[in-house]
């Protein structure tokens, strides 16, 4: 075959083999590229790499890969320009099967298996991977074997493309491919980490954990060694008179989600929750930090159902232990900025549903206060200073609706009677009727048609056992993901160093004298992305600037960070901890 009838002069299937040690940038070993129209094949070993790719990358050529961010990362490593048109069959396979069962996963073998295609030549050979990771110098025979291995993946792409091509919405697929180039740039950049405290933490982590348990558990008495004792905790709750959610089995619900919820209601439990999360989730040696002091891991684009990135919790600095983010620090002469959309989900819901009152609330600058006014709970002249409690109450209702929370959970979160929670949720329904009609229709549409799509065609398929709450939330989450992807494209293409995308935010780095400019440029890119996704409706952004020698501080983790740093100081790192 000579490729699908797509209007490209050349269609290149490309695969690289490379070495990527944890936290470090890729080092290309070889590449194989096959042009479908001419049947021309290129096999290049690393010593043959030139100053430009051996295939055309202009807008008349289509670059096809499976998980293209890896290949594009190799382009960056070689100082090559990125292709103008990228089609990623991994992304398209994810889109085609999102919400469906994929018995063998979403890797190249998984896709071949899904379509009943031959996996010969692709079956993962551990010894071949070990051979590549071993590094040079490879014998001539080893080089040929590695190139053959690489060509096996290209031939697999050649088999896969025709069965996928007919259902690929090419124009939107190329937009997703554009994002894979942004992913390559962001993974190339990485997040700057303050190495001395990280090294001390790693060195003394066992002792620090012991000290943390001893220090924090002194307030609670619920640990035996490093083991959290359910019975002791139950006794503590009884003693303090704290009602706690139960599982259907009648046992205490000790999930982190529940702990997080309850720690909001009973802040005295917050250190305990942080400790449990730290002991359970934090594996410092897994945190992927390269030799250049940058945290760098696969961003796992399009991994979540919503199409959001889903990087490894343990490898990514923006994992669940928020206090650890204190390690993020700009190097000397540089600054960082964390720029996020304000109330992104509320804004998306308002714009896409066309709910006039919701749009007005968003545009007021304080949707929570505006909602309380629109519901008649506070007078029109109220401010956040005059009515802080009511504002917080209505804020929690907005968040509860976004999480798909029922009245009972909301009552628990608010620590208020169930009847009040019901009334508040009803106020949301009554105030934002158009939104709720649209939201109901989205669920109906999904169930009737079997799928739901974002503005740029990211699809979730609906099968038996679907979760209506998840479907209801899909337009906000998935269009939020579209917005973030587009902002990443715009920002990275304009030369901004985006270190990482985080849910509804971008972390950028810049030399100190250019930071202000880059913050403004990033905010402009994010505003533009919101206008494109929301058909003209613009979302605001907020920027937190971190200038050297300051470090990133998440208010939720500040207390724990300071506690740990005191322990680090005791371990001999006084100067560093300070």
């Amino acid at each position: 075959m000579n490729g699908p009838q797509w209007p490209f002069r050349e269609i290149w299937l490309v695969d690289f083999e490379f070495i990527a040690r944890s936290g470090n940038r890729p080092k290309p070993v070889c590449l194989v590229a096959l042009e479908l129209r001419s049947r021309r094949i290129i096999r290049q070993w690393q010593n043959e790499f030139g100053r430009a790719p051996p295939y055309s990358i202009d807008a008349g050529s289509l670059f096809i890969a499976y998980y293209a961010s890896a290949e594009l990362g190799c382009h960056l490593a070689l100082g090559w320009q990125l292709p103008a048109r990228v089609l990623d069959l991994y992304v398209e396979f994810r889109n085609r099967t999102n919400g469906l069962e994929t018995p063998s996963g979403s890797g190249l073998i998984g896709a071949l298996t899904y379509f009943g295609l031959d996996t010969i030549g692709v079956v993962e050979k551990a010894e071949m991977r070990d051979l590549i990771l071993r590094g040079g110098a490879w014998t001539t025979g080893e080089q040929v074997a590695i190139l053959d291995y690489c060509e096996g993946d290209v031939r697999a792409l050649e088999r896969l493309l025709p069965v996928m091509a007919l259902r690929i919405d090419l124009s939107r697929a190329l937009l997703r491919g554009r994002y894979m180039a942004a992913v390559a740039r962001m993974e190339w950049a990485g997040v700057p980490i303050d190495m001395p405290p990280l090294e001390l933490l790693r060195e003394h982590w066992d002792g620090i954990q012991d000290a943390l348990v001893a220090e924090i558990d002194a307030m609670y008495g619920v640990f035996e060694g490093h083991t959290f004792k359910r019975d002791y905790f139950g006794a503590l709750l009884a003693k303090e008179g704290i009602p706690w959610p139960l599982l259907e089995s009648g046992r205490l619900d000790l999930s982190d989600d529940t702990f997080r919820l309850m720690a909001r209601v009973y802040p005295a439990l917050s250190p305990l929750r942080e400790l449990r999360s730290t002991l359970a989730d934090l594996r410092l040696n897994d945190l992927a930090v390269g030799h250049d002091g940058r945290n760098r891991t696969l961003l796992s684009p399009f991994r979540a159902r919503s199409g959001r990135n889903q990087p490894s919790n343990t490898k990514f600095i923006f994992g669940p232990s928020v206090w650890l983010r204190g390690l993020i620090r700009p190097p000397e002469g540089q600054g960082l900025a964390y720029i996020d959309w304000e109330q992104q989900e509320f804004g998306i819901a308002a714009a896409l549903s066309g709910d006039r009152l919701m749009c007005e609330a968003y545009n007021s600058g304080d949707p929570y206060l505006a909602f309380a006014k629109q519901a008649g709970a506070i007078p029109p002249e109220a401010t956040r200073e005059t009515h802080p409690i009511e504002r917080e109450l209505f804020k929690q209702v907005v968040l509860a609706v976004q999480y798909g929370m029922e009245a009972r959970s909301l009552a628990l979160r608010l620590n208020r009677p169930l009847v009040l929670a019901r009334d508040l949720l009803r106020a949301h329904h009554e105030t934002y009727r158009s939104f709720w009609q649209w939201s109901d229709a989205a669920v109906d549409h999904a169930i009737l048609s079997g799928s739901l799509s974002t503005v740029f065609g990211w699809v979730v398929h609906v099968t038996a056992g679907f979760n209506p709450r998840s479907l209801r939330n899909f337009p906000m989450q998935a269009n939020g993901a579209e917005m973030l992807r587009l902002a990443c494209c715009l920002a990275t293409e304009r030369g901004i160093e985006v270190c990482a995308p985080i849910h509804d935010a971008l972390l950028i780095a810049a030399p100190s004298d250019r930071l202000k400019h880059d913050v403004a440029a990033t905010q402009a890119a994010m505003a533009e992305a919101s206008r494109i996704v929301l058909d003209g409706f613009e979302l605001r952004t907020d920027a937190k600037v971190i200038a050297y020698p300051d470090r990133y501080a998440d208010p939720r983790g500040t207390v724990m960070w300071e506690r740990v740093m005191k322990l680090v100081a005791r371990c001999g790192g006084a100067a560093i901890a300070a």
Partner: protein
Amino acid sequence: MNADAHDLKKLDPTLDPFTNLENLRLPQAFAETAGVKRLLKTVPVRKPGSQDFVRVHPELRLSPAALIELKDDRDMYLVTPNMVHQLAGEFFTATLYLAVTRQSVTFLWPVRLPNPDGKYLEWHRSAAEAAESAKSKWIRIVPNMGLGAYELFEAVSPNIPPPVWPEASFEEIIKVAFRDRLIDHPDHPIVKRLRGEQ
């Protein structure tokens, strides 16, 4: 294919992922594509619960309606005009108001009219007054046995949104409400029962 034929912009401008993004937007107006509307399948015929705030439609009502309430199962039957003469003394006359609760439950509220002798019980008079009030305000009625009448409570907050009325026509609502409780022929089981034939 020659080079011009492969000029991307000439062939298909939508294949440029760097421009024309507005043209790539897919509609999110799910209501237009889902084509789903709420169907009214059940319409109770009853007075409002003592905890329900209700509104009465300012125009839609059936009056007078001949109704029979079976005391044992509290079911309400509508007697068609052609059957009225055969059931004299068995039915009462009422106005059937179209009403909704704050939870958007649609129901028909039967409010008794004065007896043929002109006697108007306070229960019925107070209910009629409440129904009139409910045309413009959210109200709640609570029976007060000592008073022998309904007490009327009015929601004073100006911020309660207006009621949402069903899309179905009043005729359709009546049909749904009395779907299997319409006495419209002499052989109806209720007629036979009242005659002692069953």
